[in-house]
């Protein structure tokens, strides 16, 4: 929708420096929530033995996703170039419908609000929302 301003990038980096260590918890909770609140997302995980909240596959995959987000923070000045490989992975191998990026982002924001109610101010919220949308756009780059 819009590009990230210098202020957005600074806000994202600052917030991430506070919460980055909790990436595993954030990923696990966000993914668990997504599967419960948006059951259609289960269709991508039919190969997992256990889809209950906080299960081992969810915990592992939550970490994978959040590692991707952490990486994106370091590449915030050029997400399209920086996330090229991940975009190809999502486009050609995983083939996840890009609408789900928005759903995943929403749940990440919900968990951030729950875990960091004081730090997740409206200003941080808008910067993170824009950032996750920019990451989603970069991930969808190679789709067609």
């Amino acid at each position: 929708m819009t590009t990230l301003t210098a202020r957005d990038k600074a806000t994202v980096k600052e917030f991430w420096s506070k919460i980055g260590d909790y990436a595993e918890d954030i990923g696990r909770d966000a993914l668990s929530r997504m599967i419960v609140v948006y059951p259609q997302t289960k269709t991508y995980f039919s190969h997992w033995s256990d889809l209950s909240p906080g299960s081992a596959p969810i915990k592992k995959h939550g970490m994978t996703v959040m590692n991707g987000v952490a990486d994106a923070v370091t590449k915030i000045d050029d997400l399209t170039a920086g996330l090229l490989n991940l975009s190809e992975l999502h486009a050609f191998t995983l083939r996840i419908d890009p609408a789900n990026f928005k759903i995943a982002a929403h749940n990440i924001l919900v968990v951030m609000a729950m875990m960091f109610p004081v730090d997740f101010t409206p200003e941080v919220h808008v910067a993170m929302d824009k950032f996750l949308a920019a990451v989603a756009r970069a991930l969808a780059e190679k789709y067609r």
Partner: protein
Amino acid sequence: MVEWSDKERGIINSLFSTLDYEDIGSKTLSRCLIVYPWTQRYFANFGPLYSAEAITTNPNIAAHGVKILHGLDRAVKNMDNIKTAYTELSVLHSDKLKVDPDNFTLLSDCLTIVIAAKMGSAFTPETQATFQKFLAVVVSALGKQYH
């Protein structure tokens, strides 16, 4: 008609019976105006909105946020017929207020996040699912009379 399990009804009634309308209402609307600034178009006469701080401390916005939140009470009391219960409000939003119905989803996303921040771990995945289902039904009902 939307089906509600006893558990879902319990979750919604419990959530709203313990809701701090003053706190949650004001925070939700101000957050919406900050995170989705184009929504400010509907509040040109409400006083200063030029910064996040101005929005957060604007008493007119705070009061209006509380009013909007109380607008959900009607749905809580009429869970089996939310569509009909919101007929007048839908006409109001369409004909008089002229609010783009896409904005209802933006506001309900902010409400979800404000409530999540307040409840912390008590906002379980199941509670979130029920609450979002409830809000989606209200959002749909509010958009029904647009023509």
